[in-house]
């Protein structure tokens, strides 16, 4: 390839046909489930290709990687967003490598290998992957060791050892017990202005004279109160409703004209 057109950045996982599936579907299915993430998959592919991690044949590895991702899709394995992010990263690196070097770039400017960041991440990740292996081996050994059975004095102390997350979890559970009440509350609070106006109008028609104070006192929350207040203003402005007040600071009565 020359500098004509670098490969397209966008790709469609659904349109492309999986290439490997026909050969050894079962085996792959098993392998696929084992990858702990995109870096894990990449390491696997690099080893498969027997490639040098410091000189990754990016075009080949990208192709293989995309094949796997498509395969996961075709096998109805939910592909985590992180796998797609890595696919995009690989394609970007691949296209960068295809771009010719700027001939006018100053000589002394070190050519930054577009793969470097990825290699660093892979090496860093691999350390933790090995550490995970070590932990796995440790648990295997530890599972061969047993503590004593419960004795009488344990009974007096049959309690839980709490962490802060236990406190939070417990608190959430308590809140969950009230979930119905809370739902009702939310429901009540979310009465719309239109509904409030409707209710108010009906009350004025039914009761002929309605005390604003009494109406406000029926509200359950500040928010409802505000809605009620706006409803009163709205009804006075738009409908044939009058506000009357017998004396200053006295009760305000709503009345149909």
């Amino acid at each position: 390839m020359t500098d004509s057109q670098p490969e397209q950045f966008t790709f469609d996982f659904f349109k492309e046909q999986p290439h490997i599936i026909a050969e050894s579907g079962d085996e792959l299915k098993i392998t696929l489930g084992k990858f702990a993430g995109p870096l894990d998959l990449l390491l696997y592919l690099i080893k498969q290709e027997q490639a040098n991690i410091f000189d990754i044949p990016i075009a080949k590895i990208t192709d293989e990687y995309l094949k796997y991702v498509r395969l996961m899709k075709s096998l109805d394995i939910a592909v985590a967003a992180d796998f797609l992010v890595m696919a995009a990263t690989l394609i970007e690196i691949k296209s960068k490598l295809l771009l010719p070097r700027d001939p006018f770039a100053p000589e002394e400017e070190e050519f930054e290998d577009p793969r470097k960041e990825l290699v660093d991440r892979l090496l860093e990740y691999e350390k933790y992957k090995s550490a995970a292996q070590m932990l796995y081996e440790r648990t295997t050994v530890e599972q061969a060791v047993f503590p004593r059975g419960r004795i009488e004095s344990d009974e007096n102390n049959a309690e839980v050892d709490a962490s802060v997350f236990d406190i939070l979890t417990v608190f959430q559970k308590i809140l969950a017990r009230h979930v119905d009440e809370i739902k009702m509350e939310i429901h009540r609070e979310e009465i719309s202005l239109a509904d409030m106006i409707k209710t108010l109008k009906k009350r004025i028609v039914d009761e002929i004279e309605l005390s604003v104070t009494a109406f406000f006192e029926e509200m359950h929350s500040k928010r409802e109160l505000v809605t009620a207040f706006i409803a009163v203003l709205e009804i006075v402005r738009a409908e044939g409703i009058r506000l009357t007040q017998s004396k200053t600071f006295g009760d305000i009565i709503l009345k149909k004209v």
Partner: protein
Amino acid sequence: MDAVEQKQTKTPAELMAIVEALIFVSEEPITTKVLADVLEENRQTIDAAVEELKNEFESREGGLQLREIAGGWQISTRTEYHEEVRRYLKTRPSAKLSLASLETLAVIAYKQPVTVPEILEIRGVQSASAIKTLLDKRLIVAKGRKETVGRPMMYGTSKDFLIQFGLKDLSELPSIEDFEDLAGSLAQEQ
């Protein structure tokens, strides 16, 4: 065939060791019949091993004894050291809380300062004894009285609470959002 082969290779010392391990992990006194069944040995062999083990425990004069109790065998501390054992059990550091105490502590931690009636309102059960436990353990402290009917006492978490749960200050308590963040990205993963 293999099992038989393997069984025959067990020396009396090995058998004693295995019997000791089994008695140790058992939650209740273990009978020689059960031991014989598990180890696929005859009762006499096991009886002998247990008897030998008992003698060893006695001649060791350590802190433990092997006792026959309720038809089975059990390892327990020697009666001579019960005073020290009792003293230890009493001073045992306990960051441990019953569920009732933990619930009450959770409500106080997240709603502080909070009164007993308010805790009742949230938990839906009386919390008086839990509050007493938490006060005894110094996990909560009184925070003055609420200016309302009856002027009930308000409670909040203490400095000891922060220390025991490894928090710098109350803002370090995990919030519902932290959990939702976890739950949120969990949904994404699936």
